[in-house]
């Protein structure tokens, strides 16, 4: 049993809705920007079904988290204000992301550069809310 053992003790979204803090206790506290979670969403839309199919999501520097919904007892579903809401973030995924945060972020920036993409939303403002 103990399949639940990996669950965080607390998941906290800040008041600006752009930073999610996931605490696993025992010093394993991770803060993720909404941008990072959005571009590394475990959704099939982003990840594809193998490393070869993974997409590089760009232009999400200002994205915010618009909702969090628990899914069973293994994950949360995060909705972003750009309409993306198909990613189920499992406890295991948060741990992975947390432990490799810097490396993954650096690699993301490298990928953006490789592909000539930017973190900035582009075009800058589309005008009006969506």
């Amino acid at each position: 049993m103990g399949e639940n053992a990996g669950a965080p003790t607390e998941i906290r979204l800040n008041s600006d809705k752009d930073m999610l803090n996931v605490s696993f206790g025992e010093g394993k506290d991770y803060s993720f920007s909404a941008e990072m979670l959005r571009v590394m969403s475990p959704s099939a839309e982003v990840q594809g079904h193998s490393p070869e199919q993974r997409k590089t999501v760009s232009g999400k520097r200002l994205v915010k988290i618009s909702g969090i919904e628990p899914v069973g007892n293994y994950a949360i579903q995060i909705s972003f204000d750009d309409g993306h809401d198909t990613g189920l973030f499992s406890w295991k995924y948060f741990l992975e992301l947390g432990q490799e945060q810097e490396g993954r972020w650096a690699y993301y920036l490298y990928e953006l550069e490789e592909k000539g993409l930017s973190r900035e939303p582009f075009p800058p403002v589309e005008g009006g809310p969506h």
Partner: protein
Amino acid sequence: MKELFKVADAVSQDQVLELLRRVKGPELEGNIVDLGLVSEVMIKEGRVYFSITVPSDKAEELEPLRQAAEQVVSEIEGVDKVSAVLTADRAPGATNGNAQPQAAAPGPNPMGQPVGSPGSGTGAVPGIKHIVAVASGKGGVGKSTTAVNIALGLKELGLKVGVLDADVYGPSLPRLMGLTGEPTPTAGEDLHPMEGHGLKVMSMGFLVDEAQPMIWRGPMVMSALTQLLRNVAWGEIDVLIVDMPPGTGDAQLTMAQQVPLAGAVIVSTPQDLALIDARKGLNMFKQVSVPVLGIVENMSYFLCPSCGERSEIFGHGGAEAEAEKLGLPFLGAVPLHMDIRSQSDAGAPVVAASPDSEHSKIYKDIAAKVWSAIEETSAAAEEAAPKIVIE
């Protein structure tokens, strides 16, 4: 089998499987090899063949998964051609719809709405302490009969027990429990559950004609189940046994995701095939972190009613060995017996009809093991649930 591979130069089955581990499962959890979705890999003269089992209604959208699998294997040196095919895992009455697990989930949560509010679909059900799914990898293993008798066994332990028939495709609980008629509405908008043999019972079978074929699309199934679970005045219940639809398709996965399950009991016959199916069931619950409380071997052996001879017609012991291999508790072996069958069909489950019989003892013993497993895991789960705070 090994002989075959020698011919095929350096390419080995292990090599192929190793690379296929890079391909994620349909729900993007784990990989297709460890989820048990990849068939025997055939390698012949540089050609590699294998199949991937997917839910039938998802075959189309999982085409990229198939391509990804072919792609990774084609990278092996010495491989000339790769053929990966998708094999549909057809649940009985499976919908042809687009039953994405998320489809039934509430849409984007407007800012500020409380998370996990009552009725939002995934939270706890008021009044019900523990919900346990009884599942099987395939139909025809006696899952519903087992579910009802475990429920009765739990009741014998002095617990308040309900049974929810989640098999909306072929509800069998009304017949097994010998219940007819319609549930009466409460003063609110809910329904009173039916009651029989000291159990509270709810089934789609009470609401529609059992003989009338029902066509369910994915989202409808979820909404029906959510209503059966949440819009029924269950009252105070210690354990709600959910008789899951057979198989490991979308409906089951969605249920396992949407219902706050304390654990699952897997029912299997001793046959190998059924065990493979049972393993799929295990993997499904593993995917959604629902603890498997144990395996019940049904139709385990045949006790001849006239001479008392024990015949192990299906090869008894398979489930027990399998449970051990998987590190899961083996909850018990139920023999094939005419009484279980005929009494069940007559609406008198054996634990209620002949509580002191040999068979009832087996079920009560299983129920006792289930209860101790529930207590153990729920204590662990309660500790584990994260607090979600939105500032």
